[in-house]
């Protein structure tokens, strides 16, 4: 569903991403681990066509994201580290607006159900987003991904800054999406969450995908050792 082929991004002499090759299939949750500046967010931004690749290709559903920007965006949903919504609109109004932009139309009842399903407390559905915590905003993001019936989920450090309970709820929602066959690419610092949720793990260092393996093939301790080894290199 998601494919990077020799994907490279350079800023002048600096190489932010170096010949990345990866593939995420339907129902996979591919977690990209790495320190700050490792190239995780650059990868996500390239799949979103927010920046142009210097070399190589990123495809979603076999479509090149630079040539078929609109079509590929119809297939995906994106949740950044800090999902920002319009603070003067309620969670429901935000969801309605973003669904509308994606060409989806829902009744008020359906939107309420989607928000409740993603774990947002009913009291907050009609309150302005300005009063939401980060976790609540991320839940609206999940509701949006569900509402858009996205087949690809791009997540850029979505659990960063969330408390353990909210983090756990978020992981459960992701697993729910996985069951529906959604292909997920998630950049994260959180080794535990990656091991717990991901089906595939990739470790990035200085723009290079230095390691990739299936989550079930490696224990948490071994994964941690591998990670630290690459970080010290």
């Amino acid at each position, binding site marked *: 569903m998601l494919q990077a082929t020799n994907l490279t*991004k350079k*800023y002048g002499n600096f190489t932010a991403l170096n010949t990345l090759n990866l593939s995420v299939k339907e129902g996979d949750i591919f977690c990209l681990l790495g320190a700050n500046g490792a190239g995780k967010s650059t990868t996500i*931004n390239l799949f*979103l066509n*927010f*920046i*142009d690749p210097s070399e190589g290709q990123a495809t979603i559903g076999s479509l090149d994201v630079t040539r078929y*920007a*609109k079509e590929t*965006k*119809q297939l*995906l*949903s*994106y949740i*950044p580290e*800090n*999902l*920002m*919504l*319009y603070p*003067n*609109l309620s969670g429901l*109004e935000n969801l309605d*607006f*973003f669904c*509308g*932009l*994606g060409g989806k139309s829902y009744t008020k009842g359906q939107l309420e159900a989607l928000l409740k399903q993603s774990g947002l407390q009913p009291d907050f559905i009609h309150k302005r987003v300005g009063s939401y915590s980060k976790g609540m905003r991320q839940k609206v993001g999940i509701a949006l991904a569900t509402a858009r019936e996205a087949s690809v989920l*791009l997540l850029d450090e979505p659990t960063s800054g969330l408390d353990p309970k909210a983090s756990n709820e978020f992981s459960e929602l992701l697993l729910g999406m996985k069951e529906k066959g959604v292909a997920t690419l998630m950049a994260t610092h959180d080794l535990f969450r990656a091991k717990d949720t991901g089906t595939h793990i990739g470790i990035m260092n200085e723009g290079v995908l230095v390691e990739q393996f299936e989550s079930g093939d490696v224990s948490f301790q071994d994964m941690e050792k591998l990670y630290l080894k690459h970080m010290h290199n």
Partner: protein
Amino acid sequence: MRQVLLIAQKEIKVALREKLVVSMGAVTLLLLGVALYAGYVSYQQQKEIITKTQTEKRKEWLNQGDKHPHIAAHYGTFVFKSKTVLSLFDFGLDAYTGTSVYLEAHYQHGFMFRPAQDHTSMIRFGELSAALVLQVLVPLLIIFLAFGAFTRERESGTLKLLMSQGISFRILTWGKIVAYGIILAVVLLPFVAGIFILSVSGIRQEVIPDVAFRALLLVLIYSVYLWLFISFSVWISLRSATGRNALLTLLACWMFFAVLMPKTVANLSESFYSLPSMREFRARIQEDKRNGLDGKTPRSVRMARLEKEYLEKYRVDSVQQLPFNFEGVSMQAGEEHGNKVYDHHLGKLRETFHRQNRLSSIASLFNPYLAVQHLSMALSGTDMHTFIHFEEEVEGYRRELVRKMNNDMAENSRYGEFYGYKAQSDLWQEIDDFTYQTPTAPVLLQLYHLEILSLLFWMMSVFVLLNYSNRKMKPLHG
């Protein structure tokens, strides 16, 4: 289109929930209301005074009793410049051009009662007219409304979420432009309705024959002008990295277009094409009236030539033998000589005015504020061209009045019996009351083709800029 409307709807909803936007809209509407009300009060007061005084002066003219026609020509009458109903919207040059003029034989009096003479310099700097609010203050409201159109989305992080929904910058840009346009239209709607009601209700007494059409054109040019500001502000926001940068850039542009450039152009045109003082202008006319335009033909020479011409034409030896009173002919000849001298000097003066105006028109190509200012005054009937048209009509009326008086004297009185002949009220009634109608808008707008071109040029430029930036823009730099 559906996405454009969705974005517009969201922008409007967000703007309405921001107290600052609502308060600024209310303040703008209040300012427009105050300006319009002040304009209306001033229009009504002046209209009443003019109607009353004009009726009195007409009565005085008709009831002046038996009198020698030339004395009547000197007794003269007053003509008043009626305010156009649209002048309550744009005062234009009305405060500087004067409202009444005394008409008499041999002499072209200047216009009197210029409101600017009675005001302090602060008022002269710019009275609060509705046009001023629309030209200068509403663009400020637009700047505060739109400077964050993109920078706020970028800074808060919503831009990335928006773009991930598959919408393009083009859709986002037009959605925002439509939203700000609708917000502005809602704020200005009561004001536009007010202008229309006042314009249409004032048609009967109006000196503007096509007032409703002009009001429509005013709505059109101001819509274009405000659209330019909205689109330009959105474009600056699109190109700016931060809201602070966008706001500072837009305020600098506003200062340049609405304050610095118009003042500079006015000062430059005055320096390049300076006008003589009124005293100097009058002195030159008097000098040429005395000695002729060539400086070598005094009155005595001109009169001797005229006398010789008539004696030869009628084959008589003295003016007493002519079948009419030669005094009437000589007075009319003197009048025509004075007119020729006046036309010569006024022509030179107007040429300087035209050069100043041309410079300002050329400058308007680079500044839509100047273009809309000129067009607004023209459509409101308060511009220099309308005033010149009025001045010409008044002078034509004065000349016809004096000609009729002199002809009557030539035909009905005898040479040397100046005080013996007295004309009666039937002669006074031959002089119709002065009425005035401005040129129609299409005629007037032909003099403002550079200003119209300017608005078209700016519209096209903003379209091109928006189109180019929308194609090149990415949510992230790199």
